[in-house]
């Protein structure tokens, strides 16, 4: 079938252009969807199914399409799984069908179908359990070769994506007649209205299924209503925008296909809307259900309404002889549409005992043959429909007649789209008459005020008839306006007049008593190849919960998320279990309604904007002087400064030896600096730290530890008492925000009687450590404050000026050397850095990075939070009991540290390690083992390495480790087995490897 001679409401028949499908040229009109263009070019097979690789054709005309998924574009523009039924054609765009190898027409995966008896429900769980080696070497490689929907792009996405925040009184999802009229009602009341429609055009079903609205044909009424809405400044309409999910308190996400986007343009490709709405109207319409009969997946079998959509909107059809099979009056519209377009309709098969409604009578009058109590026993054909076996619906499939045809239009009734209603907890009722789940208006999802915030409208309520759908949409629009604080106008709602329809007949298996032979060819989930027989098997095997059956059979787990398959599947499950459908219930509806792009979710948060980097005042200098960057919390810090001809290891060793022998400089600005001030500051810090801070004299510094209430060490640092009522608390680089928040939490929620405030001053200061035997000489030559041993002894600080820059100098040391940490205003950090470099030139000063810092602290046995601690380590485990006060009545963690378990001598305790071979460096995290096995039969592990380095100072590998009962094991030799069979032996030593007396720092 090519184009019908007339019609095509959405296409411009005067213009054509080409696009590419599987390397073939396809002619399209502007306005076509890709699926419509394929149909108009006679392409019937558009893909293969996931499990059996059966040929698959277009089934639907909207977002519910399970089969016609395409790889769109090439190279960097490649995007898989595009639903061709909603993708507009673009000139020259290429598409490729999916899930076949080597070609769509010839596919080796079909062999799966021949073996389908061996691929029953749950086959993954049954088949691939034994033997274990086979998964890796046999099953997985074969499955990977033959399965997989679409190709993953292998190049970075060149497009941009953006996010858009919107706040509205009333959000309306769906631009059919119900959504449009609800928007009109709410808009007239003065509410701010946002209307979203997933398709590029407004109007919904009433564009095709024309009804009379207040004397006008529905397309005219739609045009007039759109014009009225466009005149209202408080109403915004967005087409091609799919509301993906409804979340707590009226939060909604939607994805817009940006209309101005073309490949290579500046416009974003997708726009993710993040909406807050006071009320949400879901005018999301209904989706037609397939019928379950043998061969219902053969290309050419389509949903009945989709067939007339293609005819009316795009002037094309799936064939020239179309049999209609139905359980309701609505499908007769398809018969009438095709008949008047000149397409043969050999018969309408109606499962009901009689068909006497207005639409069937119209069909009869047009001369169309109608068979009642009729069903399809089987569709014949492989890659396309060739004929249909007809039988009694109430029978077991005995063939009455075989009728040749090239396509089948099926209708199993309609299901309201309840996804958005359900996402945030809206409940459903089973509607017996229409055999569908519909929103229960008494049990909506509730917002922060406790009131329902979602109102269904139109056929999404379950009222499928246009008259009721339009009336309830008027009500919904007014209700939403009132609940958002507006006063709607009074007056009659528009009246839609449509033919009355007689009740449908629920049909879950066609024919009712179909034997296994037919059931095993009757598909429920077209994309995942789940058949009626699979669900019955799952029920027999004990999968009685619908959620379990879904996962066991994969019913509804494909990319269409069961939009077509769910109701039919659970009805068959209910039938197998002999349980009423409402008792079986539905699976959970989860966002998104249809897939949205990960790139849209990321938005601008890509590359350098993914996570902003914190930079110190001297960052640019480091970058210009060989810094090899290392991320430290949100900061970047120089790991080392590499010079020409050096390896990183060379550079680190040079920096260490220069600092130990002469003088080094470290940018320590990232250290947290929290000011704690107030009459009760000392008292407060006594509670926060494990040791006593209130006794610290003004001008002095003290190293302190912080524990959680559970007794575990989580931060450390030096506290300086600036004045009687103020302390500056240094924290770890990664801990400053956490510690500040921690202090605030205790102050605000537990000890709010204390008169204390805190301020995080971390970024107010640049802090530069000047370290090494020549440190004092360097500072003295800069000129200013007295930094002599007498004026500024170890663990004190003083304020003054250095090189004309206001400075606070702390005599603290993390390296064991004579060391000053100088805090200057951040704005003068670079100036100080330059001055210190200049002054230090005579002493061969050079900067050092974080690795030299780490090695030097390890040589001194100083712990590092995050290396020696992991959230299960107490100060006692780290030989830091001296910093845990026994005098204080209370501090955070004190009660926990009283627990017996923390005092057991076989806890893992900090030790130093010296490998027997001086050149050996233990790997980080290496485990020490002892002979024998533990209670699980595993190697007897007694602890692990927490820090490990090669010490250029000692010319020896060194490490720190947490070892069971380590405190009593000094002198023992431990074994550390490594990958590849090597074993490093290391001796337990005092973790202070260098200058045990502390003579070097105390000069």
């Amino acid at each position: 079938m090519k184009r019908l001679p007339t019609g095509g409401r959405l296409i411009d028949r005067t213009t054509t252009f080409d696009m590419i499908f599987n390397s073939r040229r396809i002619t399209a009109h502007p306005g076509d969807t890709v699926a419509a263009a394929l149909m108009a070019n006679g392409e019937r097979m558009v893909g293969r199914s996931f499990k059996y690789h059966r040929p698959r054709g277009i089934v639907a005309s909207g977002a519910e399409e399970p089969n016609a998924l395409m790889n769109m574009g090439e190279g960097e523009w490649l995007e898989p799984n595009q639903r061709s039924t909603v993708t507009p054609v673009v000139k020259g765009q290429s598409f490729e069908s999916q899930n076949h190898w080597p070609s769509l027409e010839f596919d080796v995966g079909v062999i799966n179908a021949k073996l389908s008896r061996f691929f029953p429900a749950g086959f993954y769980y049954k088949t691939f359990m034994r033997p274990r080696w086979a998964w890796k070497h046999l099953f997985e490689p074969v499955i990977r070769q033959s399965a997989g929907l679409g190709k993953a792009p292998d190049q970075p996405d060149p497009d941009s994506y953006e996010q858009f925040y919107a706040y509205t009184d009333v959000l309306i999802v769906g631009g059919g007649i119900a959504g449009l009229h609800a928007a009109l009602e709410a808009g007239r009341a003065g509410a701010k209205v946002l209307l979203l429609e997933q398709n590029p055009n407004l109007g919904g079903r009433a564009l095709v299924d024309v009804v009379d609205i207040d004397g006008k044909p529905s397309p005219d009424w739609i045009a007039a209503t759109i014009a009225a809405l466009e005149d209202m400044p408080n109403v915004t309409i967005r087409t091609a925008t799919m509301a993906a999910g409804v979340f707590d308190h009226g939060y909604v996400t939607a994805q817009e296909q940006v209309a101005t986007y073309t490949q290579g343009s500046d416009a974003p490709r997708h726009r993710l809307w993040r909406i807050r709405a006071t009320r949400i109207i879901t005018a999301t319409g209904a989706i037609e259900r397939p019928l379950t009969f043998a061969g219902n997946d053969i290309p050419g079998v389509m949903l009945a309404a989709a067939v007339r959509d293609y005819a009316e909107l795009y002037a094309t059809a799936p064939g020239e002889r179309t049999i209609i099979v139905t359980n309701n009056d609505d499908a007769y519209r398809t018969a009438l549409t095709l008949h008047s377009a000149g397409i043969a309709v050999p018969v309408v098969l109606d499962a009901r005992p009689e068909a006497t409604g207005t639409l069937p009578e119209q069909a009869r009058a047009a001369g169309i043959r109608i068979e009642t109590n009729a069903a399809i026993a089987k569709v014949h054909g492989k890659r396309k429909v060739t004929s249909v076996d007809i039988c009694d619906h109430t029978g077991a499939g005995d063939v009455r007649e075989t009728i040749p045809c090239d396509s089948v239009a099926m209708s199993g009734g309609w299901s309201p789209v309840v996804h958005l209603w359900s996402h945030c907890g809206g409940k459903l009722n089973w509607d017996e008459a229409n055999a569908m789940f519909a929103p229960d208006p008494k049990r909506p999802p509730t917002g922060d005020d406790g009131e329902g915030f979602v109102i269904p409208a139109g056929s999404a309520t379950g009222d499928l008839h246009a008259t009721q759908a339009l009336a309830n949409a008027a009500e919904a629009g007014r209700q939403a306006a009132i609940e958002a604080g507006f006063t709607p106008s009074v007056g009659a709602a528009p009246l839609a007049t449509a033919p009355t329809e007689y009740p449908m007949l629920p049909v879950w298996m066609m024919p009712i008593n179909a034997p296994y032979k037919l059931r095993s060819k009757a598909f429920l989930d077209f994309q995942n190849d789940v058949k009626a027989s699979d669900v019955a098997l799952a029920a027999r095997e004990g999968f009685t919960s619908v959620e379990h059956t879904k996962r066991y059979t994969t019913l509804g787990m494909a990319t269409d998320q069961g939009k077509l398959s769910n109701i039919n599947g659970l009805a068959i499950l209910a039938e197998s279990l002999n349980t009423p459908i409402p008792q079986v219930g539905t699976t959970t509806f989860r966002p998104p309604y249809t897939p949205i792009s990960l790139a849209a979710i990321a938005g601008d948060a890509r590359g350098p904007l993914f996570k902003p980097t914190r930079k110190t005042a001297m960052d640019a200098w480091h970058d210009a002087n060989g810094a090899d960057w290392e991320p430290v919390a949100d900061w970047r810090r120089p790991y080392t400064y590499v010079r020409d001809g050096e390896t990183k290891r060379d550079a680190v060793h040079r920096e260490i030896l220069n600092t130990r022998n002469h003088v080094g400089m470290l940018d320590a600005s990232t250290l947290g600096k929290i000011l704690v001030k107030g009459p009760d500051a000392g008292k407060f810090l006594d509670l926060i730290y494990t040791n006593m801070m209130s006794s610290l004299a003004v001008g002095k510094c003290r190293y302190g530890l912080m524990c959680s209430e559970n007794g575990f060490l989580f931060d450390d640092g030096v506290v300086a008492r600036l004045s009687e009522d103020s302390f500056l608390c240094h924290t770890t680089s990664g801990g400053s925000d956490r510690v500040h928040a921690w202090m605030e939490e205790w102050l605000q929620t537990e000890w709010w009687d204390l008169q204390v405030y805190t301020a995080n001053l971390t970024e107010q200061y640049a802090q530069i450590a000047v370290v090494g035997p020549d440190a004092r000489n360097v500072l003295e030559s800069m000129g200013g404050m007295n930094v002599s041993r007498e004026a500024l002894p170890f663990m004190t600080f003083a304020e003054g000026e250095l090189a004309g820059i206001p400075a606070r100098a702390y005599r603290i040391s993390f390296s064991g050397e004579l060391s000053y940490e100088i805090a200057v205003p951040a704005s003068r950090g670079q100036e100080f850095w330059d001055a210190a470099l200049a002054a230090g030139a005579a002493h061969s000063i050079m900067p050092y990075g974080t690795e030299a810092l780490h090695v030097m602290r390890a040589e001194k046995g100083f712990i590092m939070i995050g290396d020696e601690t992991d959230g299960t380590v107490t100060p006692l485990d780290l030989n830091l009991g001296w910093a845990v006060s026994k005098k204080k009545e209370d501090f955070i963690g004190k009660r926990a540290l009283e627990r017996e378990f923390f005092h057991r001598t076989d806890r893992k305790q900090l030790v130093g390690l010296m490998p027997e071979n001086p050149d050996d460096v233990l790997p980080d995290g290496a485990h020490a083992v002892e002979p024998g096995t533990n209670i699980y039969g595993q190697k007897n592990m007694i602890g692990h390495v927490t820090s490990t380095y090669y010490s250029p100072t000692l010319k020896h590998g060194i490490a720190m480790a947490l070892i069971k009962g380590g405190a009593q094991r000094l002198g023992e030799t431990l074994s550390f087995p490594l990958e590849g069979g090597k074993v490093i032996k290391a001796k337990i030593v005092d973790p202070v490897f260098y200058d045990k007396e502390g003579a070097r720092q105390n000069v």
Partner: protein
Amino acid sequence: MLKLTCPYCGVTGEETEFHAGGEAHLKRFGPGSGDEDFTNYLFSRKNPRGVHFERWRHQYGCGKWFHAARDTGTLEVFGTYTAQTGEPPADIVAKIKAKRPEWEGFA
């Protein structure tokens, strides 16, 4: 994503603007307390489906900790109030009782 109103600065913000701090009105058991009290203080939480009192911090706003009275099932927020109290304020308790007559009250 919840909406909450900070009782200190009056701003209504998205959940991402706030930081959840677990159950409110915990009584701290410190040094000298018995093992059971201390264990419950550290590890036992009510976690009800229904009326609940929670700690939140206006992390990306004024920085203040506050409390929220909320129904964890329906997500209704009965009110937010200062963290500097040992129990929920009377007006919020009254509001909850009016809306949830079956609620057994704050204990």
